[in-house]
């Protein structure tokens, strides 16, 4: 990537802003959607400081993208406030631009015109604007493709257009919403190192060459630990349902960063441990072994996946480190944690710190014949309070069975994640033939008789 001299006019709105204020700041931010309201973000406090690259790391569904949109002023928070350069943000943040996961290019405009959208509304002369467009296209290495249309480009090239469009605005803050996750592994890697160089140049330009004029900070959203460690100066770790900031970690890995550098690897492990610990504290203790009859929150995973995890553990001597299990299964960490949590709820696995091991029930499940497996699972399911509760409801509703929607309404009243819990529970119970339910009329009955024939 070449460092190029971008246009000379400075966006005057930035001049009045003090360097000391964070470019963007969320204070006690709450976001809820729909009615009845589903809480997506709760009490989020973060700030993007001038000159830093900040990564927001979290499992899917933790509200990362929502947070980004709230910070940019694209959606109205339901509580708390957003500050831009120290003042309360009204409307869209004047100094941000976004690189989208889905590229968000207009298919009917050429590369040049798509990038041209980036300078819309800026107070530039035609001459300067044109030069800036050309320079941004060169900066991402797309010279020669000015007149091509998005559909003629590969995924990686499309994202380069997306980056050029965002840079053309010469933003204070460049937001990247999972910018590499729609790309194949190799393209993602190439683009990631180019963005790394871009961030580094933006860093240095504060003192000298002003390579990318105006750009001070980068905010990147990701679910990949390595990506965060590779790019960011600080990493915000988020947990899901509702999205909360779990911790903020300073990334001390020295530049230039390499994946196999010991410092890099130890940072990755450290983050890994923090994420797992956070999950432990937040949810496992809360629900496992609830003697008081509280209805458990079940993660949205399938029974075959849970059994799959037990099988993998079994193949590795019945006990494994979470980090190694993650490597082995190539699952996203957030999802793997959900699976382990589900296994723990069913007492098929047990966790001790970072160590996951197979329980006696888990061993007998794997040892059983396929027809007996359902019986093992059924008896494990009966241990759940929420299972007992559902069985009770269904047996009270008589011959015709219970209505799924009624049950969902009742469960939502008892615990906040009733809908997804019921969804998982019904799937598990159907798998174990404890319950059966027909999707068309939505009735739930006891036993697995209906679908056996």
């Amino acid at each position, binding site marked *: 990537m070449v460092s190029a001299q971008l246009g000379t006019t400075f966006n005057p709105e930035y001049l009045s802003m003090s360097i000391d204020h964070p470019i963007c700041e969320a204070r006690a931010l709450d976001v809820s959607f729909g009615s009845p309201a589903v809480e997506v973000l709760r009490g989020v406090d973060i700030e993007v400081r001038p000159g830093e690259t900040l990564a927001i790391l979290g499992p899917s569904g933790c509200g990362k993208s929502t947070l980004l949109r709230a910070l940019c002023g694209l959606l109205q928070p339901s509580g708390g406030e957003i500050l831009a350069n120290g003042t309360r943000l009204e409307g869209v943040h004047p100094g941000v631009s976004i690189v989208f996961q889905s590229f*968000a290019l207009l298919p009917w405009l050429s590369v040049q015109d798509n990038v041209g959208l980036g300078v*819309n509304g800026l107070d530039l002369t035609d001459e300067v604007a044109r030069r800036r467009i050309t320079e941004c296209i060169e900066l991402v290495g797309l010279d020669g493709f000015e007149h091509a249309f998005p559909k003629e480009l590969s995924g990686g090239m499309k994202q380069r257009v997306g980056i050029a469009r965002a840079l053309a605005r010469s933003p204070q803050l460049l937001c990247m919403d999972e910018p590499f996750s729609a790309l194949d592994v190799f393209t993602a890697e190439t683009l990631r190192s180019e963005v790394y160089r871009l961030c580094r140049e933006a860093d240095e330009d504060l003192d000298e060459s002003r390579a990318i004029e105006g750009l001070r900070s980068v905010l990147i959203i990701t679910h990949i630990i390595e990506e965060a460690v590779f790019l960011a100066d600080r990493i915000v770790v988020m947990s899901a349902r509702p999205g909360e900031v779990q911790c903020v970690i300073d990334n001390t890995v020295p530049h230039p960063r390499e994946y196999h550098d010991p410092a890099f690897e130890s940072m990755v492990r450290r983050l890994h441990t923090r994420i797992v610990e956070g999950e432990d504290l937040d949810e496992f203790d809360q629900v496992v072994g609830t003697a008081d009859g509280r209805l458990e929150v079940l993660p949205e995973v399938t029974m075959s996946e849970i059994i799959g995890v037990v099988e993998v553990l079994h193949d590795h001597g019945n006990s494994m480190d979470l980090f190694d299990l993650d490597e082995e299964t190539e699952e996203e960490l957030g999802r793997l944690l959900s699976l382990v949590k589900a296994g723990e709820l069913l007492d098929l696995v047990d966790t001790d710190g970072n160590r996951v091991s197979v329980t006696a029930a888990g061993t007998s499940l794997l040892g059983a014949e396929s027809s007996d497996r359902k019986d093992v699972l059924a008896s494990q399911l009966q241990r759940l309070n929420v299972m007992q509760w559902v069985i009770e409801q269904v047996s009270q509703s008589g011959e015709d069975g219970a209505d799924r929607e009624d049950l969902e309404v009742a469960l939502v009243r008892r615990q906040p994640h009733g809908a997804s819990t019921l969804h998982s529970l019904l799937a598990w119970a159907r798998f174990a033939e404890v319950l059966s339910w027909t999707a068309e009329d939505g009735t739930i009955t006891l036993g697995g008789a209906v679908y056996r024939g």
Partner: protein
Amino acid sequence: MAIGLVGARNLGRLSRRSGGILTDALLLALILAALGVLLLYGRQATGGYHRAADIDLSITSLPGYAALSLARCLAAFVLSLLFTLVWGSIAAHNRRAERIMIPALDILQTIPVLSFLPPVTLALIMLVPGSEIGLELACIIMIFTGQAWNMAFGFYQSIRSIPPSLYEVAKINRLGSVRTFLHIELPGSMIGLVYNSMMSFAGGWFFLTTIEMFTLGQRDFRLPGIGSWLATAQQEHKWGLVAVGSLALIILIVGTDQLVFRPLLVWAQRFKIEEQESSQPPRSWIVSLWRRSPIVRMLRRRRDARLAVRHGSQSSKRPRRAEGHHTALWCGVLKPVRGLALLAGAAAMAWGLYELVRLLIPLEWSSNQGSGWGDVLAGLGLSFARVVAVLVIGSIWTIPMGLIIGRSSRLRSWLGPVVQVVASYPAPAYFVLLTVTLGSLGTPFWFIAPLLMLMGSQWYILFNAMGGATAIPADLLEMSRIQQLGWWARFRKVEAPAMFPFLITGWVTAAGGAWNTTIVAEYVQTSVGPEGVHETLGIGSLIASATDQGDYAVLAAATLSLAVFVIVFNRLVWSRLYGLCATRYNLQS
């Protein structure tokens, strides 16, 4: 084809929309109130128009007439397009407006075009007296009612399906609402717009013969055009001229389709949102010809060069700061204005409904000189039976036919266009011919009427059966061969369920078409004068004869019952079947 084309797509949405019965009732009342006011005007309009333009049945006049008809369709189309852009974008952006505007389209398209004909014509003639302009306007508005609803709904849906990230791009880059519309919404919905324009324009021809020439009470209305030319030729039993006129009409229809809409459809592909190339993009010979031409190529190269020079910034110089202030000001003014408008609207609605009720009150259960409520209900029942018969008979031949054509790419490639031409030819244009021919063989008219309805609507089932047959996954068919299923088992277990969503669309569209066709199929005038009238009791013949005799009470009663019946039937039957499609017969999941 008002009812048909939109109905199919609306219902998919309806099944997802819960409640809304109150909205439906309110909107129905509103539209009926409008009808009431129009009818009131129509009744008062007595003088004014006398002249029946003579239709010159010489072949040399035909091109001129064809051009006039085409101009009417185009004018109506421009009107529809304007309506579409305004109605569709308001509905897509304003949540509260959406809740009213979308069901309103749904209800508007269940009211048959021809019920609007007498009041609209008379009102316009009264407004623009002493010339043919009023009649022309009425005719254009009639064609408009056959085109607009479908296009507006399609446009609304296209806007709604634009990915939210594109809107975020617009916001971050401060495009403003006008440029968001021009750069994102209009291009983003271009394919839907062109496609629906094509369908609507084709639908506009359907009632041409009826709209260009009709009688209202004692008055005979005619406009020079290919529709009235054909109608006159048929009523005078000049079959040679009918053949020539039909050929001209086919040329006109196929011509506009091939020369205008196909190229437009190909052009619109550049606005496709999914950024991959589709495996089978639409093709047009005229576009290929155009692209292959060396002159065009040269011109294009020069234009590209020019554009490259000109392109640069699209910056608007001044940031608009006063916007917020303006909005606040507007809100202050708008609030009382909106309240007043609402009040006025409610008053107007009450008045319209009052007029409608006043019109309906004298109507007895059964009266000896005309028709009463009893006839209306009997007619509704009989027409419903005919519609059901049309669907059953239509399905019996079109489903196997569609399977055969749809499954063989060779058959599809040469039979497809033939079916398209046959289907796009407006069936009412040969109803007189069919009635006379079958009548001379001694066929009773009660048997001919459903046959005419069948001619008008079976194509929708055939098209969808073909589409459904093409969409059956190849691995399901291979599986049925491996399992050695017989043809009946294969049809029952594999083909019919896989085609089911397509067939539902076909049936809904065909039923809509059949209801609309009742008006021209249950009442056919084969020659001038009362002895040339063939009719059989039905809702369509009641509407048509009430139009002829200027019996507004019956017209209102029949329209009202038909609209209510169709709406209730849509909600109770079709939208449930759509729900079933989305769950059990969904091949995606």
